[in-house]
Structures are given as C-alpha cells and as structure tokens.
C-alpha cells in the first residue's frame, strides 16, 4: 500500500532539490550554471534556514564540485552535485575517475546544449558526451519522474553489486523551469527508503576493511593502474553495469510499493499492434504520446518506446519492444558529428543488427539548442515512417527535424 502523499507545484529543478533535501546527503558541492541554478539556490536556502544539516560546499568550479564529491564519497559520505552543459564538460575528466573508483555519487544533469556557439537551452549534447564515462543515466520525462529518480538513484548507486555514480537527467527549461504537479512522500518515508549508506568489504594492502578511506585500516584509492591491472578493473565496471540492469528494476519495484508509481528501464506506449514507432528520451516523449493518441484516433497504428535508463543500455528490453515493428524512428536530441547517426540511433542499430528480422530504422535529430519540437513535427516523423514502411526501404536515414535547410 502506498504512503499518503502531498501534491506540490514544482518545476524540475525544485523537484531535484526537494527530493535531495529529503534524502539529506552528507555533502552537497555545486557550482551554478543555467538552467541548473534553481537546484543550487534551493539547496543553499535549506541550509540557510536550518532545514537540513548537510555540508553545502560552494566550490569555485564544476571541476572542483565533482572533485570534492570524489573526496567526500571516498571518505564514506553521501555526496551530491548538479550541473549542465559546459559545467559537465569541465567535469569530464573527473566523471571517469568517480566511476573508476566506484563512488556512488548522485548528480542531476539539467540537459543543455554544449557550446559553441553558446546556447543555454535544452538538448542532450552534454550528457551524451559523458555516456562512456561509466555513470548510470536516467532520463526523465516530467518533474514527477525527476523527483522519484532523485530518491531512488541513491539506492541504485550504492547497491553493493553496482557501486556506480548516477546522472539523473532532466531537460533544461522544458522541465527545469516549468511548474508541474508533483506528488511527494513524507520526509520520514524517504529517509527510511534511502536508509544509511552501506559499504562492501575489501581486502586491501593493510587488511580487510570497508571500501572507504578508513583511518583505522588504510586503503589506497586511485593507484597507478597500468597495462597489467587496468583492464581487469574495467571488467569490474562492465559487470557493475550488467548488475545495474537487474538492480534498477528491483529498487524501482520497492519504490513502487511506497509511492504507487512504477518505473521500467523502457516504457512502451500503445505498442501492442504498432506498425510505426518512435524511440526517444526525455521530455519530448510527452509530446510523442500526445501525437500517438491523435494518430491512433485517426486509425494509424502508431506507438512509442520511451527509454528511461540509457546507461546501462537496456538492450534485451529494446529488442523485445522493437523486433516486430516494421518501421522505427529514433529521436536523438544530440549529434555525434561525423558519425553515421545520433548516439541513440547508433546504439539501437547495433542492438537490433543481429536479429534475423528487424525493423527499418531511421534517425530523426531534433530539438538542438532548444528548438521546439511540437506535435506537428512529431506527426511529420510518423508520416515519414509510414512512407518507409510502405516502400519497404530507407534512403538517407538521417533527418533533421525542425531545422531550416
């Protein structure tokens, strides 16, 4: 039975901040960047008003924000940060270190396009640039998902089989600055759900100890890891990502019991008999749902697959969702310049390639630099997919939706 909840009007940034306040980690280290600023402002206000007792570290850069989190997390603290765009780019070096040292840091990414030229609006070029860094990535469609993921992320990251940092991604402005209804749990329910951070035991050079900087039994973190050991440590991370595919649904199921809200790695929508379908991430999926409903009313067998967890990539669920669909359009909100397609497109192609019978798959790049992707544009995507389905072939798979040629 789910707990009694309070309906609050909050934008995406406030949802991150409110959930983080309820989790009350040990250390918050962050540097302001549009459109993430509401998060750091709120988290500072809670401290100023005595509502929380975490250490708020107003660092001098994003690089130091994540570096501080690495120190804090290695010392055994729960550490949180938030950033966007160029801020994440500045952190890039440390994202790999946080994952490689297996530190369960939680970071909100308020997705914003990566200059230049400089642009403050939403696309996914920031978090997609960090997709190889060894972080779990959860992409949210609305503020409710943002709130929920900002709570469950801690349990996923800290799970002894996982121990990986997590990015909770929300679209800049579209979510971060747009007020929505968000159901929130009581503080006590949240703090009971996240519990205390627990540690695995390892055998280091001075004996057995919890995996943290322990003054009583010292460990050495971040050694020089050369050609004779580095590869094995990467196997550890590969395994952790595989484990995360099992752990994430377990945590989500447990959370569903207290919240009544269920989440999956992938969310198929009206896919049961779909002939054309769109796959994508983030807030655009709301617009796609709306369009799918319209098309269904018109008799078009349209469907949607929303990918909520992009890292680890839910390959097996994706195969199940798409294998029998004649034509699939992959919506990418970022570019991989010079590559055969956008990142989600390429990974979808790679995942489905081995199937004996597979969909025709086209790539629709959209929304770059915050370009609005309204229902009309999504309708155009479906029309294009219907044409592909009827012809049985794709010419150039690349489409740039909403751009002036």
């Amino acid at each position, binding site marked *: 039975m789910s707990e009694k909840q309070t309906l609050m009007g909050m934008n995406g940034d406030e949802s991150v901040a409110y959930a983080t306040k309820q989790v009350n980690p040990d250390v918050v280290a962050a540097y302001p960047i549009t459109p993430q600023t509401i998060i750091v402002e709120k988290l500072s206000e809670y401290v100023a008003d005595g509502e929380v007792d975490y250490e708020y570290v107003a660092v001098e850069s994003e690089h130091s924000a994540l*570096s501080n989190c690495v120190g804090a997390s290695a010392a055994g603290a729960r550490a949180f940060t938030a950033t966007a765009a160029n801020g994440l780019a500045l952190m890039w070096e440390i994202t790999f270190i946080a994952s490689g040292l297996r530190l369960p840091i939680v970071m909100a990414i308020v997705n914003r396009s990566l200059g230049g030229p400089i642009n403050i609006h939403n696309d996914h070029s920031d978090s997609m640039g960090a997709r190889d860094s060894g972080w779990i990535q959860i992409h949210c469609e609305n503020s409710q998902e943002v709130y929920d993921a900002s709570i469950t992320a801690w349990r996923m990251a800290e799970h002894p089989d996982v121990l990986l940092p997590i990015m909770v991604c929300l679209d800049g402005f579209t979510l971060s600055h747009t007020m929505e209804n968000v159901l929130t749990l009581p503080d006590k329910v949240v703090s009971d759900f996240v519990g205390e951070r627990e540690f695995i035991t390892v055998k280091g050079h001075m004996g057995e100890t919890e995996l943290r900087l322990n*003054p009583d039994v010292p460990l050495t973190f971040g050694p020089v890891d050369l050609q004779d050991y580095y590869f094995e440590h990467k196997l550890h991370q590969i395994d952790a990502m595989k484990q995360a595919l099992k752990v994430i649904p377990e945590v989500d199921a447990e959370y569903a019991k207290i919240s009544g809200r269920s989440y999956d790695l992938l969310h198929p929508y009206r896919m049961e008999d779909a002939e054309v379908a769109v796959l994508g991430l983030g807030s655009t999926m709301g617009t796609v749902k709306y369009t799918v409903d319209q098309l269904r009313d018109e008799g078009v067998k349209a469907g949607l697959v929303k990918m909520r967890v992009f890292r680890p990539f839910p390959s097996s669920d994706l195969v199940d969702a798409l294998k029998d669909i004649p034509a699939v359009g992959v919506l990418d909100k970022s570019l991989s310049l010079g590559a055969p397609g956008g990142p989600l497109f390429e990974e979808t192609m790679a995942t489905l390639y081995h199937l004996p019978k597979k969909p025709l798959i086209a790539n629709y790049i959209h929304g770059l630099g915050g370009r609005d992707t309204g229902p009309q544009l999504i309708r155009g995507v479906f029309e294009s997919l219907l044409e592909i389905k009827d012809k049985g072939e794709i010419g150039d798979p690349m489409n740039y939706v909403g751009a002036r040629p």
Partner: protein
Amino acid sequence: MSELNLKQASRKPEGLAAGHRLCAGCGHSIVVRMILKATRGPTIATSATGCLEVATSIMPYSSWNIPWIHNAFENAAATASGIESAWQAQRKRGKGPLAKYETLDVIAFAGDGGTYDIGLQALSGALERGHDFTYVLLDNEAYMNTGIQRSGGTPFAAATTTSPAGSVIPGKKEWKKPIDDIVIAHGIPYVATLNPAWPMDVMRKSRTAFEVEGPAFLHAFIGCPRGWRYPMEKTISLSRLATQTCLFPLYECTLEEGRPVYKLSGPSAAIARRPASKKPVEEYLVSQGRFRHLFRPEKRDDLIDSIQAWVDQKWEILLEKAGV
C-alpha cells in the same frame, strides 16, 4: 603542543613505507616522512598527480600506511575539501564512519605544477572556503614526473626541457611565481616554509599546521637530483644552501587580528641577526647542472648578478615583513 622530538619521532611508525619508486636521493619522501611523523592521529591524505603519487602507488603496491587517494592533477585541494566536508558533516550529525574522530588531519600533497599552475584555482577556492586541512606544496621547481618541463615554480634562468638553455635564450625567462604571497593574501591562519635539512623545524611546523583550525599551507623545498642535475647524495646539503643563501628562507606566517604576522625560523633568523653569514647565491647555482650555462662556456655575471639582486630584494622585503 604535544611532544615532538627527534628521538621520539624516530620511533614512530612510518606513514610512507619503503619500497616506493622515487629516484635515489629524491627529496619528496624525506619531507613526506617527516610530515607524517607529526600527525596527531587519524589522518587521510590525497596527492595530486606527480612524482610522489606515481612512485608510491603503482598497482598492486602502495607505500601509504595511511588512507590515501589520488584523484587527478589539478584538484588536490578540492579532493581534500571533500574529505574534510565529509568529516564535518558526519561529526556534526554524530553518524557515519568518520563521526567518531575528534581530530582528522586531512592533507593534500601536490607538486609545483599541481600548485603554481594547474591546481591554483582549486587551491584558491579551498583556501577561500576555509576548510580545515593542510596543503603541502612539494616544490621541486619543474614537472619532473613528465620529464623536467618548466612550471610557474621554476626559477629564473633554470634550464628545463621546455625552457632549455639555448644559444639565444639562457633558460627560463620568467621569475618564480610568489606562491607564498598569493596564499598568504587569502588570509588563512597558517603558512610556513619547510626545508628537510632541518627535520625538527619541518615536524614542528607540520604539527602546527594540523592543529590550526582552518586551512594551513606548507611550502616544502624538494631537491631533485635528476631534474636539477646534481649528485644524489647532495639533496640535503643543497637544500641547506638554498636557505643559507636566502633563496628559500624559512619562516612562518600566522594571522593575528586579521593581520599576517611573519616570524623567521631558526636558520633564517640567524642570518637576519648576522647578515654576514648569508652565503652568495652563486654557491648554490654553481653546484647544479640546470644552471651550468651561467658558468660555461663563459661566465654570465650579468645573470648571476640579477639573480642575486632578486634574492636580496625578496629577502629584504621578508625582513621588513618580519619586523627585523
């Protein structure tokens, strides 16, 4: 201050174990061993990328008998600030693994590259925020780990692989960055210079740095036989000469009622009392291959004189600050 003397501290277990792979005669481990003998109890350290970090943590071996983390090159101060924040948060709440420690000596070790250059921003930020930690600058005056490239800490006229002594340009063209002045300008409670030739002075200042509340900065002189090109047995005698020539004066700077208060330490105070005992800087320069071009093929008195004048002026300014 609790007791610290040479005999007692010599029996204290090593914080940095043998078997590390620093060069024979390296000054790093000499200084780090002394500093770790001065810790009060629970300690966590972090090192910036550099000679010390690389030579002490080659998987699967570690020389660190204290909990230690390497994060990256430019962020030793930020990493240390995270460790300190974790301790403060858990101590305040009375829960979490660090909550039980009444004191925690958090130390950031970084070289001159990691401090004067790439790490200056993170250092400045951590000092400004006032974290209770000790930052140790291990200054061997160039990027030695990557093959002796010049840094902001490399002295004027020194030859490095990126400031070579050529037929037109005689080594580094710029003067050493005044890092201590930059740090002191942050208004932190304790800054001191360390020279391994005086072990008791190193340990006493380190203990003070740990005991002070808020950030402390220790600037250690680190001889590098390989990069400076001198015989490996000369590390201590050359370090001593750096202080005897006033090129690397020993002093402390504390904060009293918001004002920096400078105090010369033993060997430098002795020179202040007997100025005639100050040795000429040429004696220091001539013993190192990195300054060889100042003496051969012909002696460059113009450059040696300008280095002497620079040292004299810095020394005079320090004497004024110390009220001598």
